[in-house]
Protein backbone atom coordinates (compact mmCIF):
# COMPACT_ATOMS: atom_id res chain seq x y z
CA UNK A 1 0.00 0.00 0.00
CA UNK A 2 1.21 3.48 -0.81
CA UNK A 3 2.36 5.42 2.25
CA UNK A 4 1.25 8.65 0.56
CA UNK A 5 -2.17 10.34 0.53
CA UNK A 6 -4.47 9.30 -2.33
CA UNK A 7 -4.43 12.79 -3.84
CA UNK A 8 -0.63 12.96 -3.86
CA UNK A 9 1.49 12.43 -6.97
CA UNK A 10 3.45 10.07 -4.70
CA UNK A 11 7.12 9.32 -5.09
CA UNK A 12 8.89 11.62 -7.56
CA UNK A 13 12.42 11.68 -8.88
CA UNK A 14 14.09 14.89 -10.05
CA UNK A 15 15.50 14.84 -13.57
CA UNK A 16 18.40 16.75 -14.96
CA UNK A 17 19.08 18.15 -18.42
CA UNK A 18 22.31 19.65 -19.70
CA UNK A 19 22.11 22.41 -22.31
CA UNK A 20 25.23 22.96 -24.35
CA UNK A 21 24.04 25.75 -26.61
CA UNK A 22 25.22 29.04 -25.02
CA UNK A 23 22.49 31.11 -23.42
CA UNK A 24 22.79 34.84 -24.07
CA UNK A 25 21.81 36.76 -20.95
CA UNK A 26 20.26 40.19 -20.49
CA UNK A 27 23.33 41.40 -18.58
CA UNK A 28 25.45 40.97 -21.73
CA UNK A 29 27.25 37.85 -20.60
CA UNK A 30 26.36 34.31 -21.56
CA UNK A 31 26.42 30.86 -20.06
CA UNK A 32 28.28 28.46 -22.35
CA UNK A 33 26.50 25.47 -20.83
CA UNK A 34 24.16 24.87 -17.96
CA UNK A 35 21.99 22.27 -16.27
CA UNK A 36 18.39 22.49 -15.23
CA UNK A 37 16.91 20.16 -12.66
CA UNK A 38 13.17 19.54 -12.88
CA UNK A 39 10.34 17.25 -11.89
CA UNK A 40 7.28 16.17 -13.83
CA UNK A 41 3.92 14.93 -12.58
CA UNK A 42 1.23 13.25 -14.68
CA UNK A 43 1.50 12.07 -18.28
CA UNK A 44 2.19 14.11 -21.39
CA UNK A 45 -0.57 13.27 -23.86
CA UNK A 46 -0.04 12.27 -27.49
CA UNK A 47 -0.88 15.72 -28.85
CA UNK A 48 1.40 17.33 -26.22
CA UNK A 49 -1.37 19.74 -25.40
CA UNK A 50 -1.67 19.15 -21.65
CA UNK A 51 1.63 20.50 -20.31
CA UNK A 52 1.58 22.97 -17.43
CA UNK A 53 4.69 24.85 -16.30
CA UNK A 54 5.06 25.84 -12.66
CA UNK A 55 7.35 28.82 -12.02
CA UNK A 56 8.78 29.14 -8.54
CA UNK A 57 9.23 32.16 -6.32
CA UNK A 58 12.28 33.54 -4.56
CA UNK A 59 13.15 30.60 -2.32
CA UNK A 60 11.32 27.89 -4.28
CA UNK A 61 12.67 25.06 -6.39
CA UNK A 62 11.73 22.15 -8.64
CA UNK A 63 10.20 20.00 -5.91
CA UNK A 64 6.64 21.32 -6.10
CA UNK A 65 4.66 18.17 -5.39
CA UNK A 66 4.95 14.63 -4.08
CA UNK A 67 7.69 13.05 -2.01
CA UNK A 68 11.34 12.18 -2.63
CA UNK A 69 11.29 9.24 -0.25
CA UNK A 70 8.89 7.36 1.95
CA UNK A 71 10.54 9.03 4.95
CA UNK A 72 9.82 12.59 3.73
CA UNK A 73 7.85 14.43 6.36
CA UNK A 74 6.69 17.13 3.99
CA UNK A 75 5.64 17.02 0.34
CA UNK A 76 6.75 19.54 -2.32
CA UNK A 77 6.09 23.25 -1.76
CA UNK A 78 2.85 23.41 -3.78
CA UNK A 79 1.45 19.97 -3.06
CA UNK A 80 -1.77 21.67 -1.94
CA UNK A 81 -2.52 22.49 -5.60
CA UNK A 82 -0.78 19.82 -7.65
CA UNK A 83 -1.96 16.22 -7.67
CA UNK A 84 -4.71 13.88 -8.87
CA UNK A 85 -8.04 15.69 -8.49
CA UNK A 86 -6.40 18.88 -7.20
CA UNK A 87 -6.65 22.36 -8.75
CA UNK A 88 -3.79 21.52 -11.10
CA UNK A 89 -5.06 18.04 -11.77
CA UNK A 90 -2.34 15.57 -12.69
CA UNK A 91 -5.00 13.21 -14.07
CA UNK A 92 -5.46 15.77 -16.84
CA UNK A 93 -2.20 17.69 -16.95
CA UNK A 94 1.47 16.95 -17.39
CA UNK A 95 3.05 19.29 -14.89
CA UNK A 96 6.65 20.48 -15.18
CA UNK A 97 8.41 22.23 -12.31
CA UNK A 98 12.04 23.29 -12.51
CA UNK A 99 14.68 24.93 -10.38
CA UNK A 100 15.60 28.19 -12.05
CA UNK A 101 19.00 29.05 -13.34
CA UNK A 102 21.01 30.69 -10.58
CA UNK A 103 19.21 28.58 -8.00
CA UNK A 104 20.78 26.43 -5.32
CA UNK A 105 18.78 23.23 -5.61
CA UNK A 106 20.53 21.52 -8.48
CA UNK A 107 20.27 23.81 -11.51
CA UNK A 108 23.40 25.71 -12.51
CA UNK A 109 23.95 28.54 -10.07
CA UNK A 110 26.60 30.43 -8.09
CA UNK A 111 27.47 27.34 -6.05
CA UNK A 112 27.96 25.17 -9.17
CA UNK A 113 31.38 24.46 -10.64
CA UNK A 114 32.41 26.84 -13.42
CA UNK A 115 33.72 24.57 -16.23
CA UNK A 116 36.23 27.28 -17.21
CA UNK A 117 37.94 27.39 -13.82
CA UNK A 118 37.06 24.11 -12.16
CA UNK A 119 35.96 26.06 -9.07
CA UNK A 120 32.55 27.21 -7.98
CA UNK A 121 31.27 30.34 -9.72
CA UNK A 122 30.68 32.24 -6.49
CA UNK A 123 30.69 35.97 -7.16
CA UNK A 124 31.54 35.35 -10.80
CA UNK A 125 28.16 33.85 -11.61
CA UNK A 126 26.41 36.15 -14.10
CA UNK A 127 23.33 38.13 -13.10
CA UNK A 128 20.20 36.28 -14.22
CA UNK A 129 16.90 38.08 -14.70
CA UNK A 130 13.30 37.00 -15.28
CA UNK A 131 13.70 37.24 -19.07
CA UNK A 132 16.69 34.87 -18.91
CA UNK A 133 14.75 32.38 -16.83
CA UNK A 134 11.95 32.36 -19.34
CA UNK A 135 14.40 31.84 -22.21
CA UNK A 136 15.97 28.92 -20.36
CA UNK A 137 12.53 27.49 -19.58
CA UNK A 138 11.69 27.72 -23.30
CA UNK A 139 14.72 25.55 -24.01
CA UNK A 140 13.50 23.04 -21.46
CA UNK A 141 10.12 23.08 -23.24
CA UNK A 142 11.92 22.41 -26.54
CA UNK A 143 13.75 19.50 -24.94
CA UNK A 144 10.47 18.04 -23.65
CA UNK A 145 8.81 18.50 -27.05
CA UNK A 146 6.30 21.04 -25.77
CA UNK A 147 5.52 23.64 -28.44
CA UNK A 148 2.72 25.25 -26.49
CA UNK A 149 1.99 25.03 -22.78
CA UNK A 150 -1.63 24.48 -21.81
CA UNK A 151 -0.88 26.85 -18.94
CA UNK A 152 1.93 28.56 -17.10
CA UNK A 153 1.32 29.15 -13.42
CA UNK A 154 3.31 31.18 -10.94
CA UNK A 155 3.02 33.13 -7.70
CA UNK A 156 5.07 36.12 -6.59
CA UNK A 157 8.38 36.05 -8.54
CA UNK A 158 6.91 33.01 -10.31
CA UNK A 159 4.00 35.16 -11.47
CA UNK A 160 6.48 37.52 -13.09
CA UNK A 161 7.87 34.59 -15.08
CA UNK A 162 4.38 33.53 -16.15
CA UNK A 163 3.70 37.10 -17.28
CA UNK A 164 7.02 37.28 -19.12
CA UNK A 165 6.19 34.07 -20.97
CA UNK A 166 2.92 35.60 -22.16
CA UNK A 167 4.76 38.68 -23.43
CA UNK A 168 7.89 37.03 -24.89
CA UNK A 169 6.42 33.78 -26.25
CA UNK A 170 2.75 34.62 -26.81
CA UNK A 171 2.16 31.65 -29.09
CA UNK A 172 3.66 29.18 -26.63
CA UNK A 173 1.03 29.25 -23.86
CA UNK A 174 -2.78 29.17 -23.89
CA UNK A 175 -3.53 30.11 -20.29
CA UNK A 176 -1.59 32.13 -17.75
CA UNK A 177 -2.08 32.25 -13.97
CA UNK A 178 -0.37 35.10 -12.13
CA UNK A 179 -0.89 34.97 -8.35
CA UNK A 180 0.14 37.59 -5.77
CA UNK A 181 2.42 39.29 -8.23
CA UNK A 182 3.06 42.54 -10.09
CA UNK A 183 4.57 43.68 -13.36
CA UNK A 184 7.23 45.53 -11.39
CA UNK A 185 8.28 46.07 -7.80
CA UNK A 186 7.49 49.25 -5.90
CA UNK A 187 10.19 51.39 -4.28
CA UNK A 188 9.22 49.89 -0.91
CA UNK A 189 9.72 46.39 -2.27
CA UNK A 190 13.13 47.22 -3.68
CA UNK A 191 13.98 48.81 -0.33
CA UNK A 192 13.18 45.59 1.55
CA UNK A 193 15.30 43.62 -0.91
CA UNK A 194 18.17 46.05 -0.45
CA UNK A 195 18.09 45.62 3.33
CA UNK A 196 18.20 41.85 2.81
CA UNK A 197 21.15 42.16 0.42
CA UNK A 198 23.07 44.47 2.73
CA UNK A 199 22.57 42.01 5.57
CA UNK A 200 24.30 39.35 3.46
CA UNK A 201 27.00 41.53 1.93
CA UNK A 202 28.02 43.04 5.27
CA UNK A 203 28.49 39.62 6.88
CA UNK A 204 32.30 39.21 7.29
CA UNK A 205 31.94 35.66 6.01
CA UNK A 206 30.49 36.84 2.72
CA UNK A 207 34.03 37.51 1.35
CA UNK A 208 32.73 39.43 -1.66
CA UNK A 209 30.69 36.44 -2.68
CA UNK A 210 33.56 33.95 -2.78
CA UNK A 211 32.82 32.48 0.64
CA UNK A 212 32.88 28.93 -0.75
CA UNK A 213 36.56 29.30 -1.66
CA UNK A 214 37.27 30.20 1.96
CA UNK A 215 35.20 27.35 3.32
CA UNK A 216 32.79 29.66 5.14
CA UNK A 217 29.10 30.59 4.78
CA UNK A 218 27.59 34.04 5.56
CA UNK A 219 24.94 32.40 7.68
CA UNK A 220 24.31 35.34 9.91
CA UNK A 221 23.66 37.73 7.01
CA UNK A 222 21.52 35.24 5.13
CA UNK A 223 19.51 34.56 8.28
CA UNK A 224 18.94 38.28 8.79
CA UNK A 225 17.89 38.66 5.16
CA UNK A 226 15.36 35.90 5.62
CA UNK A 227 14.05 37.47 8.82
CA UNK A 228 13.34 40.75 7.01
CA UNK A 229 11.78 38.88 4.12
CA UNK A 230 9.65 36.76 6.40
CA UNK A 231 8.15 39.83 8.10
CA UNK A 232 7.00 41.08 4.72
CA UNK A 233 5.44 37.73 3.78
CA UNK A 234 3.15 37.74 6.82
CA UNK A 235 0.42 40.23 7.60
CA UNK A 236 0.25 42.25 10.80
CA UNK A 237 -2.91 40.32 11.66
CA UNK A 238 -1.35 36.92 10.99
CA UNK A 239 1.65 37.77 13.19
CA UNK A 240 -0.63 39.15 15.89
CA UNK A 241 -2.75 36.01 15.88
CA UNK A 242 0.21 33.66 15.84
CA UNK A 243 2.42 35.35 18.44
CA UNK A 244 0.80 38.45 19.90
CA UNK A 245 3.12 39.73 22.61
CA UNK A 246 3.60 36.26 24.05
CA UNK A 247 6.77 35.78 26.06
CA UNK A 248 8.83 32.60 25.98
CA UNK A 249 9.66 32.70 29.69
CA UNK A 250 6.43 34.27 30.80
CA UNK A 251 8.19 37.31 32.28
CA UNK A 252 10.36 40.22 31.12
CA UNK A 253 14.12 39.85 31.56
CA UNK A 254 15.18 43.45 31.01
CA UNK A 255 18.27 42.57 29.00
CA UNK A 256 19.48 42.44 25.41
CA UNK A 257 20.72 38.88 25.43
CA UNK A 258 17.52 36.93 25.94
CA UNK A 259 15.14 35.97 23.18
CA UNK A 260 12.08 37.20 25.02
CA UNK A 261 9.12 37.47 22.67
CA UNK A 262 7.82 34.45 20.79
CA UNK A 263 7.94 36.39 17.54
CA UNK A 264 11.68 36.98 18.01
CA UNK A 265 12.24 33.31 18.60
CA UNK A 266 10.22 32.39 15.55
CA UNK A 267 12.07 34.81 13.26
CA UNK A 268 15.47 33.66 14.54
CA UNK A 269 14.51 30.07 13.92
CA UNK A 270 13.29 30.88 10.40
CA UNK A 271 16.51 32.76 9.67
CA UNK A 272 18.78 30.04 11.00
CA UNK A 273 16.92 27.26 9.28
CA UNK A 274 16.97 29.12 5.97
CA UNK A 275 20.68 29.97 6.20
CA UNK A 276 21.48 26.26 6.39
CA UNK A 277 19.59 25.30 3.24
CA UNK A 278 19.90 28.29 0.94
CA UNK A 279 22.82 29.88 -0.89
CA UNK A 280 23.59 33.54 -0.19
CA UNK A 281 24.64 34.34 -3.77
CA UNK A 282 21.41 32.80 -5.06
CA UNK A 283 19.44 34.95 -2.62
CA UNK A 284 21.20 38.07 -3.89
CA UNK A 285 20.57 37.05 -7.49
CA UNK A 286 16.87 36.28 -6.91
CA UNK A 287 16.23 39.60 -5.16
CA UNK A 288 17.98 41.49 -7.97
CA UNK A 289 15.90 39.60 -10.55
CA UNK A 290 12.80 40.77 -8.68
CA UNK A 291 14.03 44.37 -8.61
CA UNK A 292 14.99 44.46 -12.29
CA UNK A 293 11.78 43.06 -13.70
CA UNK A 294 9.76 45.75 -15.46
CA UNK A 295 8.68 44.66 -18.93
CA UNK A 296 6.94 48.01 -19.58
CA UNK A 297 10.22 49.90 -19.17
CA UNK A 298 10.97 49.64 -22.90
CA UNK A 299 7.50 51.08 -23.62
CA UNK A 300 7.93 54.14 -21.39
CA UNK A 301 6.05 52.43 -18.61
CA UNK A 302 3.00 51.71 -20.76
CA UNK A 303 2.02 48.24 -19.56
CA UNK A 304 -1.04 47.93 -21.83
CA UNK A 305 1.20 48.49 -24.86
CA UNK A 306 3.70 45.97 -23.49
CA UNK A 307 0.89 43.42 -23.30
CA UNK A 308 -0.23 43.86 -26.91
CA UNK A 309 1.38 40.62 -28.14
CA UNK A 310 -0.30 38.54 -25.38
CA UNK A 311 -2.56 35.72 -26.56
CA UNK A 312 -3.01 33.75 -23.35
CA UNK A 313 -6.10 33.98 -21.19
CA UNK A 314 -5.15 35.30 -17.78
CA UNK A 315 -6.24 34.59 -14.26
CA UNK A 316 -4.87 37.20 -11.85
CA UNK A 317 -5.28 36.56 -8.11
CA UNK A 318 -4.41 38.74 -5.13
CA UNK A 319 -4.89 38.51 -1.36
CA UNK A 320 -6.38 41.24 0.80
CA UNK A 321 -3.64 41.40 3.46
CA UNK A 322 -0.67 40.90 1.13
CA UNK A 323 1.44 44.02 1.53
CA UNK A 324 4.44 42.68 -0.36
CA UNK A 325 2.40 42.36 -3.58
CA UNK A 326 -0.82 44.11 -2.57
CA UNK A 327 -4.10 43.80 -4.50
CA UNK A 328 -3.53 47.26 -6.01
CA UNK A 329 -0.54 45.87 -7.93
CA UNK A 330 -2.51 42.93 -9.26
CA UNK A 331 -5.27 45.33 -10.28
CA UNK A 332 -2.72 47.31 -12.30
CA UNK A 333 -1.94 44.15 -14.24
CA UNK A 334 -5.60 43.24 -14.70
CA UNK A 335 -6.44 46.79 -15.82
CA UNK A 336 -3.60 46.84 -18.32
CA UNK A 337 -4.79 43.52 -19.74
CA UNK A 338 -8.30 44.98 -20.07
CA UNK A 339 -6.91 48.10 -21.78
CA UNK A 340 -5.05 45.84 -24.19
CA UNK A 341 -8.32 43.95 -24.75
CA UNK A 342 -6.92 40.64 -23.54
CA UNK A 343 -8.86 37.92 -21.78
CA UNK A 344 -8.50 38.27 -18.04
CA UNK A 345 -10.31 37.37 -14.85
CA UNK A 346 -9.26 38.95 -11.59
CA UNK A 347 -10.01 37.56 -8.13
CA UNK A 348 -9.26 39.38 -4.88
CA UNK A 349 -9.30 36.84 -2.07
CA UNK A 350 -10.00 37.84 1.53
CA UNK A 351 -7.22 36.15 3.44
CA UNK A 352 -5.44 36.99 6.69
CA UNK A 353 -2.14 35.31 5.83
CA UNK A 354 -0.47 38.10 3.85
CA UNK A 355 1.78 37.25 0.89
CA UNK A 356 2.19 33.68 2.14
CA UNK A 357 -1.47 33.10 1.28
CA UNK A 358 -0.49 32.21 -2.29
CA UNK A 359 1.00 28.94 -1.03
CA UNK A 360 -1.93 28.01 1.21
CA UNK A 361 -5.11 26.06 0.42
CA UNK A 362 -7.52 28.98 0.87
CA UNK A 363 -10.91 27.70 -0.38
CA UNK A 364 -11.90 30.63 -2.56
CA UNK A 365 -8.47 30.81 -4.16
CA UNK A 366 -8.32 27.07 -4.83
CA UNK A 367 -11.87 27.14 -6.21
CA UNK A 368 -11.05 29.93 -8.67
CA UNK A 369 -7.82 28.23 -9.73
CA UNK A 370 -9.64 24.90 -10.20
CA UNK A 371 -12.43 26.48 -12.24
CA UNK A 372 -9.90 28.27 -14.43
CA UNK A 373 -7.75 25.17 -14.97
CA UNK A 374 -10.86 23.06 -15.69
CA UNK A 375 -11.68 25.35 -18.62
CA UNK A 376 -8.50 24.35 -20.41
CA UNK A 377 -9.33 22.05 -23.29
CA UNK A 378 -7.05 19.04 -23.34
CA UNK A 379 -7.15 16.69 -26.34
CA UNK A 380 -6.26 13.06 -26.13
Amino acid sequence: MSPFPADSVGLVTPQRQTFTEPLQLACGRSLSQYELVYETYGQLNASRSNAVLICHALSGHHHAAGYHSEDDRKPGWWDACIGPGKAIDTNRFFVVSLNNLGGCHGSTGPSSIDPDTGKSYGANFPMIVVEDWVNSQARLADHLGIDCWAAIVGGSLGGMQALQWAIAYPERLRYCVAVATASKLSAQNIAFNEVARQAIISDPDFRDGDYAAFGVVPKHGLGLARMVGHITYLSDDAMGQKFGRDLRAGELKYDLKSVEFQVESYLRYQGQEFSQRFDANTYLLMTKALDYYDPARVHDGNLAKTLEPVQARFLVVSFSTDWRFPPSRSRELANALISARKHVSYVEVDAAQGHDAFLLPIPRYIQALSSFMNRIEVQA
Partner: protein
Amino acid sequence: MSLRADLQIIEKWIKPASHVLDLGCGNGELLHYLQEAKQVHGYGLEIDPDNINACIAKGVNVIDKNLDHGLDNFEDRSFDTVVMTQALQAVHYPDRALEGMLRIGREAILTFPNFGHWRCRMYLGIKGRMPVSEFMPYTWYNTPNIHFCTFKDFENLCHERSVKILDRLVVDQTHRSSKLSAMWPNLLGEVAIYRVTR
Protein backbone atom coordinates in the same frame (compact mmCIF):
# COMPACT_ATOMS: atom_id res chain seq x y z
CA MET B 1 -29.56 28.27 -24.77
CA SER B 2 -32.38 29.72 -22.73
CA LEU B 3 -31.52 33.19 -21.59
CA ARG B 4 -33.11 35.08 -18.71
CA ALA B 5 -36.04 37.05 -20.13
CA ASP B 6 -34.62 40.57 -19.62
CA LEU B 7 -31.30 39.46 -21.08
CA GLN B 8 -33.10 38.25 -24.22
CA ILE B 9 -34.26 41.80 -24.78
CA ILE B 10 -30.89 43.38 -24.03
CA GLU B 11 -29.03 40.92 -26.20
CA LYS B 12 -30.78 42.28 -29.30
CA TRP B 13 -29.31 45.74 -28.65
CA ILE B 14 -25.73 44.51 -28.62
CA LYS B 15 -23.84 44.36 -31.89
CA PRO B 16 -21.89 41.26 -32.91
CA ALA B 17 -18.15 41.35 -32.15
CA SER B 18 -18.54 44.45 -30.03
CA HIS B 19 -16.74 45.28 -26.78
CA VAL B 20 -19.01 44.96 -23.76
CA LEU B 21 -18.70 45.64 -20.04
CA ASP B 22 -21.36 44.13 -17.75
CA LEU B 23 -21.56 45.81 -14.34
CA GLY B 24 -22.85 43.37 -11.75
CA CYS B 25 -22.68 40.49 -14.22
CA GLY B 26 -23.98 37.84 -11.80
CA ASN B 27 -23.12 34.33 -12.94
CA GLY B 28 -22.01 35.62 -16.35
CA GLU B 29 -25.10 34.42 -18.24
CA LEU B 30 -25.38 37.43 -20.56
CA LEU B 31 -21.69 37.63 -21.42
CA HIS B 32 -21.49 33.89 -21.93
CA TYR B 33 -24.39 34.05 -24.37
CA LEU B 34 -22.93 37.09 -26.15
CA GLN B 35 -19.51 35.54 -26.60
CA GLU B 36 -20.94 32.25 -27.84
CA ALA B 37 -23.67 33.63 -30.09
CA LYS B 38 -22.27 37.01 -31.12
CA GLN B 39 -18.50 36.75 -30.70
CA VAL B 40 -18.64 39.65 -28.28
CA HIS B 41 -15.50 40.43 -26.29
CA GLY B 42 -16.50 41.32 -22.78
CA TYR B 43 -15.76 41.61 -19.11
CA GLY B 44 -18.08 41.36 -16.16
CA LEU B 45 -17.72 43.12 -12.83
CA GLU B 46 -18.94 41.22 -9.81
CA ILE B 47 -18.39 41.03 -6.05
CA ASP B 48 -20.14 37.82 -5.07
CA PRO B 49 -17.54 35.00 -4.78
CA ASP B 50 -19.91 32.28 -6.00
CA ASN B 51 -20.92 34.34 -9.01
CA ILE B 52 -17.28 35.14 -9.77
CA ASN B 53 -16.46 31.47 -9.69
CA ALA B 54 -19.45 30.67 -11.91
CA CYS B 55 -18.11 33.18 -14.47
CA ILE B 56 -14.62 31.66 -14.42
CA ALA B 57 -16.12 28.18 -14.81
CA LYS B 58 -18.05 29.42 -17.88
CA GLY B 59 -14.99 31.03 -19.42
CA VAL B 60 -16.40 34.52 -18.91
CA ASN B 61 -13.86 37.24 -18.06
CA VAL B 62 -14.80 38.52 -14.64
CA ILE B 63 -13.23 41.23 -12.53
CA ASP B 64 -13.65 41.11 -8.75
CA LYS B 65 -14.72 44.68 -8.10
CA ASN B 66 -17.24 46.62 -6.08
CA LEU B 67 -19.18 49.03 -8.30
CA ASP B 68 -19.25 51.56 -5.46
CA HIS B 69 -15.48 51.91 -5.72
CA GLY B 70 -15.96 53.65 -9.04
CA LEU B 71 -15.04 52.88 -12.61
CA ASP B 72 -11.88 55.02 -12.78
CA ASN B 73 -9.80 52.04 -13.89
CA PHE B 74 -11.59 51.99 -17.25
CA GLU B 75 -10.54 54.36 -20.01
CA ASP B 76 -12.90 56.81 -21.72
CA ARG B 77 -14.88 55.32 -24.59
CA SER B 78 -13.15 51.96 -24.23
CA PHE B 79 -16.36 49.92 -24.63
CA ASP B 80 -19.14 49.87 -27.21
CA THR B 81 -21.79 49.02 -24.63
CA VAL B 82 -21.83 49.09 -20.86
CA VAL B 83 -24.63 47.04 -19.32
CA MET B 84 -26.05 47.16 -15.81
CA THR B 85 -29.01 44.92 -15.05
CA GLN B 86 -30.91 45.21 -11.78
CA ALA B 87 -28.05 46.94 -9.98
CA LEU B 88 -28.72 50.69 -10.35
CA GLN B 89 -30.90 50.66 -7.24
CA ALA B 90 -28.19 48.87 -5.24
CA VAL B 91 -25.25 51.24 -5.80
CA HIS B 92 -24.32 54.10 -3.47
CA TYR B 93 -24.39 56.78 -6.18
CA PRO B 94 -26.65 55.81 -9.13
CA ASP B 95 -25.95 59.16 -10.83
CA ARG B 96 -22.20 58.61 -10.73
CA ALA B 97 -22.69 55.06 -11.97
CA LEU B 98 -24.68 56.37 -14.94
CA GLU B 99 -22.07 59.05 -15.66
CA GLY B 100 -19.30 56.45 -15.42
CA MET B 101 -21.08 54.09 -17.79
CA LEU B 102 -21.46 56.81 -20.40
CA ARG B 103 -17.85 57.93 -19.99
CA ILE B 104 -16.41 54.48 -20.70
CA GLY B 105 -19.06 53.26 -23.11
CA ARG B 106 -20.61 54.66 -26.27
CA GLU B 107 -23.95 53.33 -25.11
CA ALA B 108 -25.34 52.12 -21.82
CA ILE B 109 -28.11 49.64 -21.18
CA LEU B 110 -29.77 49.68 -17.77
CA THR B 111 -32.59 47.73 -16.20
CA PHE B 112 -34.13 48.49 -12.82
CA PRO B 113 -37.39 47.91 -10.96
CA ASN B 114 -39.98 50.68 -11.04
CA PHE B 115 -40.87 51.96 -7.60
CA GLY B 116 -43.76 53.86 -9.15
CA HIS B 117 -45.57 50.66 -10.09
CA TRP B 118 -49.17 50.61 -8.81
CA ARG B 119 -48.50 47.74 -6.45
CA CYS B 120 -45.66 49.67 -4.77
CA ARG B 121 -47.84 52.74 -4.58
CA MET B 122 -50.64 50.73 -3.02
CA TYR B 123 -48.37 49.06 -0.51
CA LEU B 124 -47.02 52.38 0.63
CA GLY B 125 -50.23 54.37 0.19
CA ILE B 126 -52.69 52.01 1.82
CA LYS B 127 -50.62 49.80 4.10
CA GLY B 128 -48.21 52.60 4.92
CA ARG B 129 -45.34 50.10 4.70
CA MET B 130 -42.33 49.80 2.43
CA PRO B 131 -43.27 47.45 -0.42
CA VAL B 132 -42.26 43.80 -0.16
CA SER B 133 -43.03 41.45 -3.00
CA GLU B 134 -41.80 38.28 -4.58
CA PHE B 135 -39.83 40.46 -6.94
CA MET B 136 -38.43 42.72 -4.19
CA PRO B 137 -38.41 40.33 -1.26
CA TYR B 138 -36.32 42.36 1.20
CA THR B 139 -37.45 44.43 4.17
CA TRP B 140 -36.26 48.01 4.51
CA TYR B 141 -33.44 47.22 6.96
CA ASN B 142 -31.78 44.40 5.06
CA THR B 143 -32.39 45.34 1.45
CA PRO B 144 -29.39 45.75 -0.85
CA ASN B 145 -31.66 48.06 -2.86
CA ILE B 146 -30.90 51.43 -1.34
CA HIS B 147 -31.83 53.82 -4.14
CA PHE B 148 -35.21 52.95 -5.53
CA CYS B 149 -36.57 55.24 -8.20
CA THR B 150 -39.46 55.42 -10.61
CA PHE B 151 -39.23 55.62 -14.38
CA LYS B 152 -40.02 59.29 -14.15
CA ASP B 153 -37.23 59.85 -11.65
CA PHE B 154 -34.75 58.12 -13.92
CA GLU B 155 -35.84 60.03 -16.98
CA ASN B 156 -35.56 63.29 -15.04
CA LEU B 157 -31.99 62.39 -14.15
CA CYS B 158 -31.25 61.64 -17.80
CA HIS B 159 -32.73 64.96 -18.80
CA GLU B 160 -30.74 66.89 -16.18
CA ARG B 161 -27.49 65.25 -17.24
CA SER B 162 -28.15 65.58 -20.99
CA VAL B 163 -28.39 61.83 -21.41
CA LYS B 164 -30.24 60.79 -24.53
CA ILE B 165 -32.72 57.91 -24.23
CA LEU B 166 -32.44 55.75 -27.35
CA ASP B 167 -34.84 53.01 -26.35
CA ARG B 168 -37.16 52.28 -23.50
CA LEU B 169 -38.99 49.06 -22.92
CA VAL B 170 -41.37 48.62 -20.03
CA VAL B 171 -42.17 45.09 -19.02
CA ASP B 172 -43.75 43.10 -16.22
CA GLN B 173 -41.99 40.70 -13.89
CA THR B 174 -41.87 38.05 -16.56
CA HIS B 175 -40.44 40.65 -18.95
CA ARG B 176 -43.43 40.75 -21.23
CA SER B 177 -44.56 44.10 -22.41
CA SER B 178 -48.23 44.94 -22.79
CA LYS B 179 -50.14 47.75 -24.51
CA LEU B 180 -51.38 48.99 -21.16
CA SER B 181 -47.94 49.23 -19.59
CA ALA B 182 -46.73 51.01 -22.72
CA MET B 183 -49.50 53.55 -22.25
CA TRP B 184 -48.98 54.11 -18.50
CA PRO B 185 -45.43 52.87 -17.94
CA ASN B 186 -44.81 54.58 -14.61
CA LEU B 187 -47.97 53.06 -13.15
CA LEU B 188 -48.13 49.67 -14.81
CA GLY B 189 -44.53 48.85 -15.71
CA GLU B 190 -42.58 46.76 -13.25
CA VAL B 191 -39.16 46.68 -14.88
CA ALA B 192 -37.66 49.19 -17.27
CA ILE B 193 -34.97 48.49 -19.80
CA TYR B 194 -33.29 51.64 -21.09
CA ARG B 195 -30.71 52.15 -23.81
CA VAL B 196 -29.06 55.54 -23.38
CA THR B 197 -26.16 57.54 -24.81
CA ARG B 198 -24.56 60.98 -24.66
